[in-house]
């Protein structure tokens, strides 16, 4: 059920990202809704299929984006790994973990995109990437972190209800 529901959720978010959020950038940075949702999902204690969600999200973004095939898949899996690692370390402060994961995950995805463009023969100066894309994207992702984290937390609790001992 949790895996099936990931397809419409992540698909819808990817469409919103492409059709709406890409048109409202901060400098050149844009909000990566799919990434933030994947990180929030991976940080939930109840969730057991965070990797599956990353594969679905990465696959959908790979279809939409012109970046080399599989780049989103690899970077989203990497971001999920980071989120799971952070969850084990700061499990008592889930929101702090979410903020940390968002910052690190954004850097990972954007750095991966920059490397991919470099590998395909398009070199973009690092200072431009940092000031025009990575930092604004981090800020935008942090802005949506709070609502997304709590919405995903609620979703996880609905999909994985806690067992009550009688």
């Amino acid at each position: 059920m949790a895996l099936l529901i990931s397809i419409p959720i992540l698909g819808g978010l990817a469409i919103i990202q492409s059709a709406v959020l890409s048109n409202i950038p901060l400098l050149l940075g844009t909000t990566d809704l799919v990434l933030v949702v994947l990180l929030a999902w991976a940080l939930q204690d109840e969730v057991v299929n965070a990797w599956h969600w990353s594969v679905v999200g990465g696959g959908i973004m790979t279809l939409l984006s012109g970046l080399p095939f599989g780049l989103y898949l690899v970077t989203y899996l990497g971001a999920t790994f980071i989120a799971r690692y952070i969850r084990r370390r700061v499990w008592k402060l889930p929101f702090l973990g979410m903020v940390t994961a968002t910052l690190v995950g954004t850097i990972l995805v954007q750095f991966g995109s920059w490397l991919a463009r470099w590998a395909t023969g398009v070199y973009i100066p690092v200072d431009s990437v940092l000031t025009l894309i990575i930092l604004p994207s981090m800020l935008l992702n942090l802005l949506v972190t709070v609502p997304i984290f709590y919405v995903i937390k609620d979703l996880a609790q609905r999909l994985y209800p806690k067992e009550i001992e009688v």
Partner: protein
Amino acid sequence: MKAKSTKKVPLLIIIVIGGGLIALALGGYLTPLSRSIINPIITAQTWISIRFQALQSFINSPDDVTSLRQENAALEAEIARLQVQIIEIQQELTEAQVLASLVDYARSRSENRYVAAAVIGRDPSPFLHYVIINRGSDDGLRKGMPVVTQQGLVGQISAVTAGAARIQLINDPGSTVNVLLQQADTEAVLVGNISGEVNLQLIPQAATIQAGDIIVTSGYGGDYPANILIGQVSTVRSNAYDLFQSASVQPAVDFSQLEIVLIIINFQPIDITPLMETTGVP
């Protein structure tokens, strides 16, 4: 017998008095008397009636408020619906104007065949200046086909699916276009930039170029047809110790406002890569 006659006397008196009163009333002689009796009654009735009506309206007022609220909500919904309709009509009008100008453009270049497509999204990665359109291989689109608007060159198709295609804009950092500077009659290369600007490179030092010079596609390289407007030179950078001059370009197309584009479907890009391979040639 005597008792019976005594009973009839009061009745007779009553009839006489009643008849007399009626006669007096019909004659108008009782009006002052009746007025003095009726006036207090009317006053009292008016007082009670006003209070009763006030009480009645107070009791019934929630119903009125409810019905007014319902009516207000219905009217607000109607206003909202009409506003949406106005926005839709305005949008359709704008689209019609854009389409009309695109048709004019297509008529002015009758040697080309076009397919119009709506821009439905942008690449989610900020590292790519690509847009997604709602036409694909089912509509005859192929990779490499040039894309224009009535203002000028937009880019070329980089990937196609059955129902959609991805367009690489000319301001993408990976885009290069061979161009011709019309006034200077010299060739150069137009390259994109991550910031969305476009620049001219490889302009010969001998060429005399200045701000305002018109830039069109040269057709060299086989990627684009010749003579499609791109923009005009905004600033020129020329150093004596450089091999080439460079320049900033003001594109004719506003890439942030792309809504409808035309794809030139009878132009097939030519791959000249095999001609450029020199390895192993004696």
